[in-house]
């Protein structure tokens, strides 16, 4: 079963990679925020997966819980920022150089 969790975790990370593409590509700041929000929620799961594959899931739940709460806060704060600044639509003119 632990092996299954490792597999699941790897699959999740691969999908997070895809989400990261959205973070990198943008085009607006708020699109990045979508990506980061999703990544944050999935990190909660990933932490639990790590806990399960180490067989000590009870120690990892607190972290996951804290994570869920703080991820929510970050999304909320960023949304608030855009509400005040009314500039969420700002687009990067130049391409990102990687």
């Amino acid at each position, binding site marked *: 079963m632990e092996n299954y969790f490792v597999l699941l975790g790897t699959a999740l990370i691969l999908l997070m990679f895809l989400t990261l593409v959205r973070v990198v590509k943008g085009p607006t700041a708020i699109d990045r925020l979508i990506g980061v929000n999703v990544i944050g929620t999935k990190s909660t799961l990933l932490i639990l997966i790590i806990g399960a594959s*180490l*067989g*000590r899931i009870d*120690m990892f739940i607190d972290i996951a819980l804290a994570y869920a709460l703080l991820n929510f806060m970050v999304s909320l704060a960023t949304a608030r920022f855009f509400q005040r600044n009314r500039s969420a639509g700002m687009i990067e003119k130049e391409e990102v150089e990687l």
Partner: protein
Amino acid sequence: MANFLEAVLGQYNNWAFIILLMIGIYAMIAKNNLLKKVIGMAIFQSAIILFYVSVSLKKGATIPIIAHGHGHDHGAVAHAIDAASYANPLPHVLMLTAIVVGVATLGVALAIVQKVNRVYGTIEEDEILEKIKE
């Protein structure tokens, strides 16, 4: 040489740590925007934390908390502890302190950035230098 390569490639965490460290210090020195410098600083610090944490790893170990350890019946548990089966707790402790120090520095740096912006109206280094010359 092959030995060297093996040593380097096997420790890919060291690669990541070195790359992050380089990114961080480059940003701290070269970036023009003060906030970018602060981000570089944070990356630099977390690279060092990465370094310490990877020191704490042991093969075949688990997290440094005794399983099902209750505070009150320590007599029986204490003798069964095998040091090799728990990750090294000391770097974790050091890095907790370092994270806290990092966030304190971050707060102060951000406050100074805001104040710089209030005085000069910009946080681009070259523009600030121009304004100072005037």
